[in-house]
């Protein structure tokens, strides 16, 4: 329980720091949201007219007063109004969230499937050694580094060019709810699947080198059985850590994906708010993504003991004990802490 409280305290601290840092950075830039909307030469406003409007928005107050004002409203659950459009930020988010959640969840799911598929196939026992399959194995192993180096916007544009404009398989406009998700989900999944697959391949390799695997194999275990029952279970831990960290990538990917495909969502909202220096919207997005990021990583941390019996033993107060299943025997695995620090260093 104390562990949980400590984690929640840390999460709150991260939230406050992220909020403050974002506010300070936005305030430090020349110009502000009111200027972004009304200072545009296209409106031809004089300096006096501009000053009047600044006063109407309260943008003429000192930065600290504005910061405290924003912080208090956020604590009360009032996210304020977009300066650019005048819409309530909560309404904008409510409209944008469902579509982004669908995109992100499907993207992550497809990425996981893709990563597991690549990793399992590339490391599958039957591909080992045999000369005819060597090229296939190296090709599969070369895939994640290639995928990780492709920029998201490039993937998106290429997918549209090929599948929509050239082949005409999926329309960009007026697509059905399923059709309209295919290309964006693929765009988002590819760069997220890549590091997952890399970590998975690496840890499968390491686990496979352990003596207990050799023992199991000598007893006649088939390649798939080995992979599934002994190796995978131990190799999942680092991949899980990675998945938590990849949430950041998911947010960044959603911004680009939604902009390229013209989908409404939190990413599109963020891109438009950045262009218009729309502080209330940006602050809400920062707070929202910080909360989710912290939550996701908290859940990942709590899942460790579920997957690894040793962690259950060392952390006797671990809250996840009850959720643990004990049917499958968990064999001694690779040294987890070393693996984790390697992942975070990436």
């Amino acid at each position: 329980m104390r562990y949980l409280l400590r984690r929640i305290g840390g999460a709150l601290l991260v939230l406050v720091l992220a909020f403050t840092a974002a506010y300070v950075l936005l305030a430090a830039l020349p110009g502000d949201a009111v200027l972004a909307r009304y200072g545009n030469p296209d409106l031809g406003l004089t300096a006096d007219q501009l000053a009047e409007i600044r006063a109407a928005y309260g943008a003429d107050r000192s930065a600290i007063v504005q910061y405290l004002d924003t912080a208090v409203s956020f604590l009360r659950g009032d996210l304020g109004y977009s300066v650019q459009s005048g819409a309530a930020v909560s309404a904008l988010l409510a409209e944008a969230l469902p579509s982004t959640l669908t995109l992100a969840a499907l993207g992550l799911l497809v990425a996981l499937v893709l990563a597991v598929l690549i990793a399992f196939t590339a490391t599958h026992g039957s591909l080992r050694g045999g000369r005819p399959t060597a090229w296939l194995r190296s090709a599969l192993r070369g895939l994640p580094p290639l995928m990780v180096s492709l920029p998201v916007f490039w993937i998106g544009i290429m997918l549209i060019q090929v599948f929509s404009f050239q082949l005409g398989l999926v329309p960009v406009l007026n697509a059905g709810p399923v059709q309209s998700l295919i290309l964006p989900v693929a765009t988002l999944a590819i760069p997220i699947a890549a590091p997952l697959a890399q970590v998975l391949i690496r840890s499968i390799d390491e686990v496979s080198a352990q003596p207990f695997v050799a023992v199991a194999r000598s007893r006649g275990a088939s390649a798939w059985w080995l992979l599934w029952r002994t190796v995978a279970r131990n190799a999942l831990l680092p991949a899980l850590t990675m998945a938590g960290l990849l949430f950041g990538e998911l947010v960044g990917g959603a911004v680009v994906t939604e902009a390229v495909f013209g989908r409404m969502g939190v990413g599109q909202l963020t891109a438009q708010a950045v262009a218009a220096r729309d502080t209330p919207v940006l602050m809400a997005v920062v707070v929202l993504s910080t909360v989710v990021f912290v939550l996701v990583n908290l859940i990942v941390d709590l899942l460790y003991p579920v997957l690894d019996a040793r962690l259950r033993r060392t952390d006797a107060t671990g809250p996840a004990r009850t959720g643990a299943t004990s049917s499958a025997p968990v064999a001694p695995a690779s040294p987890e802490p070393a693996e984790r620090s390697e992942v975070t260093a990436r």
Partner: protein
Amino acid sequence: MPAAPRPTRRTALALGLAVPAAVTMAACGGSGSGSGEAGGEPQQGGTLTYLEPQTWSTLYPPAGGFYPNGGVINNLTDRLLHQNPESLELEPWIAAALPEVNEDATEYTFTLREDATYSDGTPIDAENVVKNFDLYGRGDAERALTVSEAINNYDRGEVVDATTVRFHFTAPAPGFAQAVSTINSGLLSNATLDRSGEEFGPGNARDIIGSGPFVIVEEEIGTRLRLAAREDYAWAPASLQHEGRAHLDEIDIVVAAEDSVRVGTVTSQQAHIARQIEAPDEAQFEAEGLALHAASTNGVNNSLSFRFRDPALEDVRTRQALIAAIDRQAIVDALFSDSYPLATGILATTALGYVDTSENYVHDLEQAASLLDEAGWEAGPDGARSKDGEALTLTFNEALPQPRSREVVTLIQEQLAELGIAVELLPGDQAAQDAARTEPGTLQVYHSMVGRADHDVLKSQLSSDNRNALLNGHPDGSVGDEELDELLAQIASTPEEEGRAEASAAAQAHVAEQAYVLPLFEEPQVFGYVETVQGFATESVGRPTFYDTWLTS
């Protein structure tokens, strides 16, 4: 000679770009307006899909200058007068005739047609028209509603009788007749005029009630707007191709921010028309079944304003040297297409009051070098020029709304480096650029343009009371060149047309003589469309007008 290989490359590029562009220009029948060639009898019906690079931000007409806003407002609202996009002449619209104007242009009397109504059923009567202009002419800072830039010296509106209105001005306002024809004077229903600035923003589109040929029926914030034709529309300007309701049933306005997506969606026939086709993409519209429409914006050209009150540029010879040193033709050849004609004056050739001042913009490197020497900018051992220990370094803004501004400045950077002049580009987003724009000493050269088909546009751009592009007026209230402000004020206060044209010519001569501005090219609005789209036209500064547009089956 180190510069030798470059012209060859430029020439090659120029040929590569110019040929296809010329073909498409011919295909769309000039750059005026109207996609032209008839494809048979207009047919009624169909949904047109129109791609916008950006989402709209407000439908409050005075703040609707931003193209995504203006494109909607132009189809949603009617105006008192209609400005013919080709002749730039004013014609009756909601006003049954051209206004009666008193001698010093301080009183305008309009007689309204009686049958026009808003889409909520309320009539366009004198009271409503006065309510419109009392708001547009004065603004309301408390509701964050701005004054219309086009309306000057507004005092009040007067209801003479149910169909007659009179507007009073505190000083001559010769630009008012044209001002009422722009989208910034789009007429709105009484209920709509009571809204606050925020209530004109996204999320409220369906409640913005105009009297135009289309009404907004559906809104998806940030991505989409659906417009439907108004069945009982019967008050289109007489010079348009037809009467009655619009040919199209619906217009689907979709935001597609990525250039390649916008271009690809149209070229693969998934959408009908897209705005803002960048010069490098124009060639793709040469293909069978596709066409381009480059609409002139009829105002101040895309140009560089030299801020002459800055110590670096206070000597007229320094400014003349910059004009001689910058190779405009090379910039247009390398970055743009034939849709972007080289500027021959500060105003577009099609703009009201245009004067050819091209003899002032001759590219001559030797001349530039000797002018710099005369002005006291001496080249150091590394070639960099300086005076009294101060290096000649110029900061340019990045004109984010203008096409390829960053590339333009980068080419100029290369060109000026040969003469030992350092060029820096001010980084940052629109808010940062706007903050720097009005602060003395931050920018020496300001890259910008303004589209508006009236003599007043020159004053809008240069006067220290308006956009102040030259930073002639400083925030402390001081004005550097009083004569310039005086000449510009003449344009906006001389009552009769002839006098305004003369005043405009005098101001243009002064600006050219003093080497205040280097006009680069005439900036168009470029639309790419599939050829099933017929009768597409733009208003006087290049915003789409879909009233006459129809689709072949």
